């Protein structure tokens, strides 16, 4: 079996592909490094020269203006040159293979690829290919692959939790929603267990839970009020419309009634519990406007923190030793 492709020959972080298997001290270091980067955003000149002259290619095989924009801002604040590629994928329009595209861009002196792809494992394929073809100076950041991982989102959520709650080892955290299809949830779960969260809960109807979810370290609740009782952190997941068509759920209304985050459901959590959401929100489906705009929601700070965390990740990878 291949060596963990996130690490180079010396065991240092070469790519960021997933939070799974990232040692606790690496995660902590990323969060620590993100703090000064958060300060940069408050200055007159919101830039530092770390990645000056480097080319960061945003390779988005799956559309996402939000995520692509935050990576672009983060890269530009590091003074990097950013090139955006939105490669449309349709079964009738395959065109160039994934690896051919990567080879072409590498030939254009790319230093870093930020990759979003609809298939789980695509960034691994790219990282392994780069290594096999002797181009280990090019770093890969996974911006979301299929249902597998979205590590920067997981990390910025950890940063957010740490900002408001400080000590992970005392927390009770609930993740609510379509965990089966969520790469964000998987990245959160791995990071939370690594950081030592003692009580991690997964709240969802059975049709939206992965087989063997307990083995990933979660306690399952099908009743939201039970699941939210006494928690410190509520992490909401986005529900996609396709799930209604896919015979997984009957309707958005029923989902909202039983699994949507409303003020009265939130009331069973701790009074100072915080509410996170990766965005964009479906108001009235997984979250009520009153909560989304309420005092416990930290959804907008998540966006700001997200830029700092992505700056930290890119700066750590692109340096001589990460």
């Amino acid at each position, binding site marked *: 079996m*291949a060596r963990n492709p996130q690490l180079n020959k010396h065991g240092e972080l070469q790519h960021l592909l997933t939070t799974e298997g990232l040692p606790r001290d690496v995660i902590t270091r990323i969060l620590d490094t993100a703090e000064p980067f958060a300060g940069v955003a408050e200055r007159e000149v919101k830039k530092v020269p770390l990645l000056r002259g480097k080319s960061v290619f945003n390779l988005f095989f799956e559309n996402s203006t939000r995520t692509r924009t935050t990576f672009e801002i983060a890269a530009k604040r590091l003074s990097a040159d950013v090139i955006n590629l939105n490669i449309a994928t349709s079964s009738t329009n395959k065109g160039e293979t994934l690896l051919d595209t990567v080879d072409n861009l590498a030939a254009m002196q790319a230093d870093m690829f930020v990759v979003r792809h609809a*298939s*789980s*494992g695509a960034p691994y394929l790219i990282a392994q290919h780069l290594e096999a073809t002797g181009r280990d100076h090019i770093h890969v950041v996974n911006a979301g692959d299929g249902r*597998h991982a979205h590590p920067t989102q997981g990390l910025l959520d950890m940063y957010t939790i740490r900002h408001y709650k400080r000590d992970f080892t005392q927390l009770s955290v609930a993740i609510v929603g379509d965990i089966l299809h969520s790469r964000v949830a*998987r990245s959160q779960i791995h990071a939370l267990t690594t950081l030592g969260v003692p009580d991690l809960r997964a709240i969802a109807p059975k049709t939206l839970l992965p*087989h*063997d979810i307990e083995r*990933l370290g979660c306690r399952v609740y099908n009743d939201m009020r039970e699941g939210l009782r006494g928690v410190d952190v509520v992490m909401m997941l986005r529900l996609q419309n396709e799930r209604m068509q896919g015979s997984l759920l009957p309707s958005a209304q029923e989902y909202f009634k039983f699994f949507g985050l409303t003020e009265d459901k939130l009331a069973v959590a701790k009074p100072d519990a915080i509410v996170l959401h990766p965005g964009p929100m479906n108001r009235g489906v997984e979250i009520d406007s009153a909560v989304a705009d309420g005092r416990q929601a930290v959804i907008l700070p998540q966006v700001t923190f997200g830029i700092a965390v992505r700056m930290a990740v890119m700066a750590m990878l692109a340096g001589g030793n990460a």
Partner: protein
Amino acid sequence: MKIHIKGGRLIDPAQDIDAPTDVFIAAGKVVALGAAPDGFHANRVIDASGLVVAPGLIDLCARLREPGLEYRATLESEVAAAVAGGVTSLACPPDTDPVLDEPGLVEMLKHRARMLNLAHVYPHGALTAGLKGERLTEMGELHDAGCIAFSQANVPVADTQVLFRAMQYAATFGYTVWLQPTDMHLAAGGVAHEGEVAARLGLTGIPVLAETLAIGQMLQLARATGCKLHLARISSRAGLMLIDQARLDGMQVSCDVAIHALHLCDVDIGYFDPQCRTVPPLRAQFDREALRAALADGRIDALCSDHTPVDDDAKQVPFAEAEPGTTGLELLLPLTLAWAREMRLPLKVALARITADAARVLGLNAGHLRVGGAADVCIFDPEAPVRISRESLRSQGKNTPYLGRELPGRVSATLVSGQVVYEAPARH
């Protein structure tokens, strides 16, 4: 041509022989074992000292990719790979392009194989036209053209009414129907075994239920129609238990397992290795253990390579997009020997699964070295390691998770109908 295979250890499971025995061949048949017949003068003596002399191996399922899929493999390359792996007879499934649902196509395939004069090729005819699960094929004509059984390869039949009638029709003639048990709806979109590994990797899972539900359905249809059923590529412990129960209830059914399922499980997918993308998927460790044990004690009748050559491009894509399948003809013997070694099974038992037992499943008078039978022989060194590499593989398919590995079982020579069709290059 008269051939004397001298000094070898003859292992013939069909005759329960495992002893140093010379083999004498003339006119394409085995004419004597042990002592030469009177007046026998060999044209050629093959020195088999230190080697095992066994019946030529029989592979229950190997895709030759002809007609139509020549960019993946050709008859020439694959049959050459077969004999290099000691395989002298193989059955090929009907999922070619076009599908083997016309007698003319079958005749052409058989003709091409005969012209190559290497291994014996036994096609399986399509159970339904185009494998689409809608209309029956002319099973009688296809049988006369050379099909020894009828199969849907790994394409499920959606309409149970059609499946019922197809099995009923096959039962009319006493033909065996080979089905790979998969419920197409439960398996829809799935690319890996539904379990912890798929959950971590974010891959759509195929639950064991997809196999057990289909097995239950197929067993009942077979019972109701009186059709002879063979369940292909069992992948789960739960599936095995259903077959055990059916046999206890008096039902006749045979089944096979693919060789890679004896060695690999879902954990081997590792970091999304597309070489481990197979149909059916590699399941959990305990499934693998159950399959290994069941093949050892005979509850699984026989073993096949499930040889599926895939071109490199189709594997250098993300896992879910990769073409499923592994190359296997040249790995059948080494992987069988590796399994036997790990299970501490006598060679005779292990070899039975790829000779006499496989022949029985196919209904062929083959897989043995009885006097008067065809001289299909595999001479090999069970200890000598084989290094699996792109260069060493003769098949056009280089897609295997075993690249770079060393496995035991080097074929020294292969004979088909008394002709030497493969000989290993002389050792330095």
